[in-house]
């Protein structure tokens, strides 16, 4: 018997980030506020949010837009979104 050429049958499906397949918009402030610090209002980095390249860029661009257009506060996180479930692995 000879070994048969085949692709790895034990291959795991590619890991997906939290926003894989979700459309990021500058209008939904709640989604954007989940990636922002509640104390300073700064956007979390890639090592904290755990997002893939594309989505991290989209999120940061959307947050900057929301700041300028007057949808999202800049120096802090909107108090009504403080009780949202934690997505990023922040250690306060």
């Amino acid at each position, binding site marked *: 018997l000879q070994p048969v050429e085949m692709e790895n049958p034990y291959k795991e*499906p*590619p*890991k*997906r*980030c939290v926003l*894989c*397949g979700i*459309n990021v*918009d500058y*209008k939904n402030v709640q989604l954007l506020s989940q990636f922002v610090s509640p104390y300073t209002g700064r956007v979390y980095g890639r090592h904290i949010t755990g997002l*893939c390249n*594309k989505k991290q860029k989209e999120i940061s661009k959307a947050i900057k*837009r929301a700041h*300028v*257009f*007057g*949808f*999202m*506060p*800049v*120096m802090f996180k*909107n108090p009504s979104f403080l009780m949202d479930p934690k997505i990023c692995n922040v250690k306060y």
Partner: protein
Amino acid sequence: SLLKPETAAVLKRTVEALMERGAVVRNLENLGERSLPYKISKHKERHKRGGYFLVDFEGPPSIVSTMMDHLGRDIDVIRRAFLKHPVSKKEECSGIIPVNYEDKLIAKK
């Protein structure tokens, strides 16, 4: 202190100005009236509440500068902005592909 007839007048004015410059207005959405995320000072007044509207239109890019000028002169408009229509990309999010750092290093050498 937002009043219905006033906001209607503002919207009418802006849409008419857009159409005057040769734009085709597709849709007008009201994103609600809420308290602004931060106090905005405009036209000698400090605003705390505002109404958000989204106008969907198609037009030549030369409109943008003239419209920004026009809206800047309008007392009732607090903040103005123009955006390109978001193109809904094909949803082929294939997840995080693990990067092969060895190959990258050897190829650059």
